[in-house]
């Protein structure tokens, strides 16, 4: 029997980059086929070609063994190809339900009027299928990134599809939401849907995947059953070399007190007390909506605080804007790089220097050469894959965009750096580099707060783990005490069991 989907000889070229070169790929009905590769390997490009979002330069797409024309998203939809994009394609002004059924609105009988009650009902159903409850009338603008991801997934699920491509669907999600998604995936498999799954979290591949295909630098490297692979070999195929250990933790003696938060109240945050030391890496754990991002934003002056005292290096600070926070020595790498991090039409150079232009200015004027030198240094240090520092970040792959924002904050030379999901969408090789980089910052005496929904990662990099639940700090665990179970318990609000440790 012919496979459900076959792509062969796919080629796509951009000015200065060959994104894909003679790539082939096969998907059977009822299987989860994982697409792996480093940042910029060409995974998203291949998926966008499949969904008709971009045109290929060469190659064939066959469905049920027959050549198929997939030149536009409408073509793809006709062939039953669904897609969850890596960069959201939601309309922020519209409601959850309107987004889910955008271009696909249920109508009232024969009249061309939208049947809103049906639309909301069906939206609730799909969201419930994912084990979530997001008000379907809410504007997407106000949702958290995890909730938006759920809506994006619901949108793809609301359509009858035979092929469903998911480009890093779990990047902003925690374990809990991931499990629900996997339940849905298993059900779709039983219905015979073919699923293409992209993720940089390798554990997920072993849990949900049936087969893998690995790309590197736009070319095909390897394809086999998941059962035939282990983590080491995956990494080797992706990166082209071995990585010795996953979390290169360097134990450090912590320095003096750097940050002290006392009785902080703001919005959903209730009475937060926390101390961070120089050279310490503090992990912030919690479920989606626990208030971790909120805490980061308040410290950074992006959201107002109601009461409480914060000192940094012994000096009381109360930043009313990110500018004041940056000047006080705080940096925040925001969780949603596309919405809150990057200026898309600006170049790599301009994005890297944006928060610290005074460093690259002589007098009141920007020095182009100083700026370029900084950008060149970071692109090579972080191995940002781009044809040059003048490339618009819009044209970079997801992971490379993340590196650009990371470079921006490294360049601010802050004494406290808050990383909100620093490795979202980052490949294993680079994750390793980022962990090393965080270690290096700590060695230099910088205090680092890491927020991550990837719990093993959080436990792997942190000296201490603070756990939040519904706006409260429910516990602080040392590296030795912090196990997945204990953290999860605290994250679900079981304070009584653990007690409070300062």
């Amino acid at each position: 029997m012919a496979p459900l989907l076959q792509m062969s000889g796919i080629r796509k070229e951009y000015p200065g980059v060959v994104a894909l070169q003679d790539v082939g790929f096969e998907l059977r009905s009822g299987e989860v086929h994982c697409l792996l590769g480093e940042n910029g390997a060409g995974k998203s490009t291949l998926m966008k070609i499949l969904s008709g979002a971009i045109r290929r330069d060469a190659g064939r797409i066959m469905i049920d063994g027959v050549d198929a024309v997939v030149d536009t998203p409408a073509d793809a939809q006709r062939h039953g190809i669904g897609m969850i994009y890596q960069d959201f394609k939601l309309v922020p002004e519209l409601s959850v339900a309107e987004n889910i059924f955008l271009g696909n609105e249920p109508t009232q009988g024969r009249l061309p009027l939208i049947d809103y009650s049906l639309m909301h009902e069906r939206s609730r159903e799909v969201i419930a299928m994912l084990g979530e409850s997001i008000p379907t009338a809410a504007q997407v603008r106000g949702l958290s990134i995890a909730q938006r991801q759920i809506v994006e997934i619901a949108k793809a699920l609301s359509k009858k599809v035979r092929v469903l491509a998911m480009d890093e669907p779990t990047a902003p999600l925690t374990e809990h939401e991931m499990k629900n998604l996997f339940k849905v995936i298993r059900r779709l498999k039983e219905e015979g849907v073919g699923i293409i799954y992209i993720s940089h979290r390798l554990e997920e591949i072993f849990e949900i995947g049936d087969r893998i295909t690995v790309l590197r630098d736009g070319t095909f490297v390897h394809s086999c059953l998941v059962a035939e692979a282990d983590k080491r070999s995956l990494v080797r195929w992706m990166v082209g070399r071995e990585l010795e250990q996953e979390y290169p933790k360097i134990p450090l003696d912590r320095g003096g007190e750097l940050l002290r938060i006392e009785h902080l109240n703001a919005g959903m945050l209730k009475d937060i007390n926390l101390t961070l030391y120089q050279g310490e890496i503090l992990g912030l754990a919690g479920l989606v909506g626990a208030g971790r991002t909120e805490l980061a934003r308040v410290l950074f002056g992006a959201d107002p605080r109601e009461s409480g005292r914060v000192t940094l290096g012994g000096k009381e600070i109360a930043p009313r804007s990110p500018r004041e926070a940056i000047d006080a020595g705080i940096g925040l790498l925001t969780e949603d790089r596309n919405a809150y991090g990057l200026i898309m039409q600006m170049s790599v150079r301009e994005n890297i220097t944006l928060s610290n232009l005074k460093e690259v200015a002589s007098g009141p004027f920007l020095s182009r050469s100083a700026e370029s030198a900084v950008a060149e240094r970071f692109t090579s240090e972080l191995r940002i894959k781009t044809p040059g520092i003048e490339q618009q970040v819009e044209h970079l792959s997801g992971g490379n965009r993340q590196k650009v924002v990371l470079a921006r904050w490294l360049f601010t030379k802050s004494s406290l750096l808050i990383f909100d999901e620093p490795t979202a969408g980052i490949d294993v090789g680079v994750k390793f580099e980022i962990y090393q980089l965080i270690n290096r910052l700590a060695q230099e005496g910088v205090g680092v707060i890491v927020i991550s929904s990837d719990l093993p990662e959080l436990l792997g990099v942190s000296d201490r783990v603070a756990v939040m639940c519904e706006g409260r700090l429910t516990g602080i665990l040392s590296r030795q005490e912090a196990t997945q179970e204990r953290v999860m318990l605290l994250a679900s609000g079981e304070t009584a069991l653990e007690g409070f440790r300062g």
Partner: protein
Amino acid sequence: MPVLKTMRFGIWLALLLEVLLLTILTSSFGGSSGFESTFLNWSNLSQVIRALSFIAIMGVGQAVVIITGGIDLSVGSVLGLSGVVTAVLLNANVGTPAAVLAGVVVGLFGGILNGLVITRAKLPPFIVTLGMMSIARGLAFAITGGETIRSLPPGFLLIGQGEILGLPIPILAMALLAATVGFLLRSTPWGRYTYAIGGNEEAALLSGVSVHRVKIAVYALCGLAAGIAGVLFTSRFGVGQSTAGLGYELDVVAAAVIGGVSLTGGRGTILGVIIGSLLMGILRNGLVLLDVSAYWQQVAIGLVIVLAVILDRRTTSS
């Protein structure tokens, strides 16, 4: 933004086509069909550019506003108000320098007010500047009672009518302003922030850009440019009229957009705006030279605006 990267050749092409067409049309039929003058001669050209310099000066301010993702609809009215204030003060014998300064400050003040309301009250620029458009025009009428203010001192008239080194002063003012603002945009943190805000305001804020301050400066600059244009305009025509600059906001916005400034923000150059203004100004002049009726002139201008932008987008996307 490097100049070369964002320089669009479509707009140059449109300009070149226009100049060529007018040169051929006016010179080949010039003698026989009795057109008043040919297009391509020094006196006509300097007249054309002087006429469009007011639009171009305001266009420079407008471009910066549009780059931040905003718009300023009040520039035409502010030009009128600043001109009237200057004229009234001149007739009150405060002296030319004081009157000129007052006219410019009126523009600056109007701009700052726009910026403050937009940032503090968090209102859309379209609405705020629409309000300012009505307020400034109303004030201009109230001040003059609708009368035209005449007999302005000759010393003042020199500003708009005089020349330095053979170049009309309004043209020099335009060149100076454009060069300065173009430089500031390219080479200062403020300029970079302007583009960043237009590209992604939220991200700019979280990157440490003082969004409010930059925006207020941007609207202030736009008002200032309108003030300067108001003074020059009054001097050029020798009268203070409350209707001066009526409807100019559309020409100014059109010049900026033709020149490649993106209405969604984040993109555009000052050079582009100047060329956009040239394109529009030369077209008006050409239509007059060719003796096209006023009604058909409007039709032609509308067509050219749309065609120029189409040509521009076509050549940049390829």
